Structures are given as structure tokens and as C-alpha cells.
């Protein structure tokens, strides 16, 4: 049982015009097995929240705390956060030229598990994960995210989620750019990871569409750098009907 606690998190980014505050005090608690949807308009700070928790150097934490089972996440390096059990499925996964998917996955699994996975077992593990996400076998020899279609990048992210078995996963607009079939395949992958590892999920999205496949226990409306309303799955239906208009413009 793991708990990710975000308390009064304040984050700014450096711009040409000085530091700009993006997150203005975010409070969230995500436990193993729970699925939290964060919904909000573009520019509300949803991605900043995701990248700040993962430790992207672009963001400066100016206040508040993030702990995973009591351990101070904000003091950890990026790789230490992953080792502690955090995972970020990125909206724009990065190309790494010359590094094959297979080499990348094995290096990551070795780092996270503390020892190199046994080769034969690992090969079948990867093969199964790829088949489950309808990823072609040739994928393993391609360079990480290089020349991948939008859908391939997202499937690759979720394949990592399944293989690397984090405690808490943040999915940053994993649904963007996916057609209906790909959305279903990717969502099934997330649900498998939830069932297999009692994963806690922080699902960041703009649209309610993905929530038909990944059922949230809690919905948080995000606007202007903070959570402005919270509720159960019914809140998503309200947003679907009414949009974000009532939350923005303040």
C-alpha cells in the first residue's frame, strides 16, 4: 500500500520575464489502487504538476511538499523518484537516437530492479507486453521514439508502465492524439497494470473520452494552478455537459 501526498505544492518556471508561478498550492492524495482524474483546460498547469512530481529541471518548487510513503520526493533525483516507485507517461515522449527500445527497456529494468533481469525470462516478458499492446516485434530494434507515430509513442509509454511496475503512475494526456482503437488498447494496458500491481493512477486529461475506458474513483477539476473542485465520477459527466467555463476567467 503506497500513498503519494502532494501538499500545498507551488511551482514556478523561469521565463524571459522572470519567474512565473504556475502551481499555486496543489493538494492531492493518491493511494495504491485508486484512480484520480485531473481535468482542466489547456494552460491550467496540469502538465506542470506531472513534470514537477517527476523532477524535470525546468520547474522550480517554491513551496509545499510531495512525499511517497513519507519519503521526501522533492529531495530525490529524477532516477531516484523512479526507483521509489513513480512513473510518468509523457505527453511528448522524447526521441533518443541510436538507443534501441530493447536496450533502453533492459537498462531501465536493470536500474529499477537492482539487477539485470534473466535474459530468457526478460525476452518473453517484453514479447508478452508488446503483444498485449499490439506492438509489432520489430519495434524492439527501433530507436527509442524515433520516427514513432503518435499512437506508437503512447503504446511505448504504457508498455514501460507494464514492464517497470511502478507504485504510482502519472499519465499526462496519454489519450491525446489517439484514435478509438488505440485509445482502447492503451487503456486496457493501464487497467492491466492497475490489476497486476495495485497501481495508483493520476490521470491527466482534457477530455472525458478516456474515462469511459479507465474508470476514475475521484475527479479533480484543475484551473489556474490549483484544484478548484473535487468529486466522484459524476463530476466528469458534468464537465462533459458544461465544459470548463465556470472555472476559468477568475
Amino acid at each position: 500500500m503506497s500513498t503519494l501526498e502532494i501538499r500545498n505544492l507551488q511551482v514556478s518556471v523561469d521565463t524571459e520575464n522572470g519567474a512565473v508561478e504556475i502551481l499555486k498550492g496543489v493538494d492531492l492524495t493518491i493511494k495504491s489502487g485508486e484512480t484520480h482524474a485531473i481535468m482542466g483546460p489547456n494552460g491550467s498547469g496540469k502538465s506542470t504538476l506531472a513534470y514537477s512530481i517527476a523532477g524535470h529541471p525546468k520547474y522550480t518548487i517554491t513551496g509545499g511538499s510531495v512525499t511517497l510513503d513519507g519519503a521526501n520526493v522533492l529531495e530525490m533525483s529524477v532516477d531516484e523518484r523512479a526507483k521509489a516507485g513513480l512513473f510518468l507517461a509523457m505527453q511528448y515522449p522524447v526521441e533518443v537516437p541510436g538507443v534501441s527500445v530493447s536496450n533502453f527497456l533492459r537498462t531501465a529494468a536493470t536500474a529499477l530492479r537492482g539487477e539485470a533481469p534473466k535474459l530468457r525470462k526478460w525476452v518473453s516478458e517484453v514479447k508478452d507486453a508488446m503483444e498485449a499492446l499490439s506492438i509489432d516485434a520489430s519495434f524492439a530494434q527501433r530507436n527509442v521514439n524515433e520516427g514513432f507515430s503518435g499512437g506508437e509513442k503512447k503504446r511505448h509509454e504504457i508498455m514501460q508502465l507494464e514492464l517497470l511496475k511502478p507504485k504510482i503512475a502519472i499519465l499526462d494526456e496519454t489519450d491525446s492524439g489517439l484514435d478509438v482503437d488505440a485509445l482502447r488498447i492503451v487503456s486496457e494496458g493501464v487497467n492491466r497494470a492497475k490489476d497486476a500491481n495495485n497501481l495508483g493512477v493520476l490521470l491527466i486529461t482534457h477530455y472525458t473520452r478516456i474515462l469511459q475506458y479507465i474508470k476514475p474513483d475521484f475527479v479533480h477539476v484543475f484551473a489556474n494552478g490549483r484544484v478548484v473542485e473535487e468529486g466522484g465520477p459524476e463530476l466528469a459527466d458534468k464537465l462533459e455537459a458544461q465544459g470548463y467555463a465556470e472555472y476559468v476567467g477568475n
Partner: protein
Amino acid sequence: MSVLTTNILVPHGREEDWRFTPLNRLKGLHDGSAAVAEHRSLSMDSEVTPGVSFERISRELLLSLSLTDDAVMNRVRELSSDVAVLKIAANTEVSSPIHLSRKTFDLNAAEFSRVLIHVGSNARATVILANTGDTLLAEEIEFKVESGAHLTFVTLQEWDAKTVHVGKHHAIVDKDAMFKSITVTIGGSVVRLLPTVEFTGPGADAQLIGVYFATAGQFFEHRIFVDHCVPNAKSRVNFKGALSGDKAHTVWIGDVFIRANAEGTDTYELNRNLLLTDGARADSVPNLEIETGEIVGAGHASTTGRFDDEQLFYLMSRGIAIEDARRLVVRGFFSEIISEISNTEIQDRLMQRIDNELSKVGA
């Protein structure tokens, strides 16, 4: 042709061709002050197969095929007593690579070495020259690639720390012939190589690719020249370099000359440098001179940058420690070129050496 070498001009450093080279570290290769070594280090390690011969021919019997105004090359022509000749007869297809090597440990005297690699019409071969040891070497390798022939030439500078190596690798590529060179420079104190190409028939194709990795104090220069002097020839140049440590210095010059009669030329050259630490310097100068507009394409690009923070973040967000993430990125950067060497043993050896250099500087 005979070249008069009694009055070789000594470069002083202000000449365009020498402006980057630290002449004071050349151990006299350029000004005649180096003692001339007796040894001839080049050996053939592969078994001789039908259609392949390797022998030494007196220099009087084999004149150089190209012109040069390079001071060190003129000394090579003057001081080498014979020419090592690797010959692949016309229509011979050599299935496995021909391995040549130099392995010398002598820093007191300089070797001046002339080599000719002659590939007859429609022959196909891969030649791999591995340089190890610690030595002072001035070398001229000429390639004569006859019509329709394909030659891949791999040269590996895996020297120890004190080597000074100045070389010109000049390919003469005839009609419909293909010359591909893969130049790897990861060892030595000063290495200055001139991979150059001259086309002698239409439809000729040259691909010059390479990698270099300079660590503290090393100077590696690659000065490319492709002379498009015939119509419808194609050339591609792609060199990638990494630098780390104080006073690591690399120079890449890519000169491409498209002469007035070279209609239908298709050329592109690319140089990318990765600066791994402060204190290193990468000079990169692409140069395109065009005398005709009737070409298929001509372009160049040059970039020099640091680690991509987004790449490192992505890898680290999967639990990979920063040193391993950097190693992956550097290996990936080089692998585009290294993977072109059709020998996995050599690929692994080079990657291992690159890993070792990386861990030395703690990058």
C-alpha cells in the same frame, strides 16, 4: 607524376590548411626535424585469397597518383623507400574483410609510409586498417577504385596516448565506382587526417563517414575534401564527434568543390559535435564551393551542442542513473556510424573504448 620535393615549404601555422593544427606538437613530422624510422609497420593480417595481393614496391617504380601540396605528404613521398600495395584484381569479390594493421611502439623516430590500395574494375572488397600502439606516423594512402568497383575502407585510430599521426587518405573513384570510408579516431595525442576524394568518371559515388572522441588534451583534426570534377557523381559526408575534458580539441573541415563541368552533382555533408564537459573546443567548418547551378543537390549542416536535457530526463525518469543515461546517449550518438562497420567484434571493441574514455572523465 613526379613531384619535386627538395623544396618543401614548412608550414608555420598561418596557412589556411594548418591554422588549427598545433605544429609544436607534431614532433617534427612537418618540418624535417623528425628522425626517420627504419620500420615499416603496415602488415596484412588476413590470409591472401585469389585475386588479392599485398607487396612492397620500390617507390621509383610506383609514382603517386595524385598531386599534393601538403608538406607532410611531400615528406612521405620523399622519405618512404617503398610503397605497400594492396591489390584486388578486377572482378574479384572478396567476401570477408581484408584486415591490415599497424602496431608500433616507437616514439623516437617517425615512420613515413606510402600505401596504395588498388581495386580493379567491378571488384568488391572491404579493407579494415586498425592502428594501435604508440608511434609517430606520417602516412599517405591512395585508393584507386576502378570503374564499377566497390571499396569500403575502415580506418581505426585506436592509438595509445602519445601518438602523433598525420595522414592523407586520397580516393580516386572512377565511373560508376563506389568508395565508402569509415574513419574512427579515438586514440592518440595529435591525429590529423585528410580524407579526400577525386572523381574520374560519371556515376561515381563516395561516402565518407566517421566518428571521433577527444578527451583532455587530445587534438583530432579531420579535413575532408571532395572534388566533384566530373558530372553526375554523388557524395555524402557525415562525421560525428564527442569531446570531454580540458583542452580536448577537434577540428572538422568539410570542403566540397563542384566544378563548372560537374553537372548533376549530388552532395551533402554533415558534422555533429557533442560537448560533454566545459573546457573542450570543437571547430566545425563546412565549405561548399559551387561553379555550376545544374546540380541535383548540394547542402551541408553543422551542429555543436551539449547533452540534450530532455533526453537525459526521459531516461532518468525510467530509473536510469545520470552516468548511465549519458553513456546511453553518447553510445547512441556514435552508433549511427559505428554500426556501419560490418564486424560486431570491432563495434563492441570501439564502444568499450568509448565507455572507458567516458568513465575516465566521469562524464
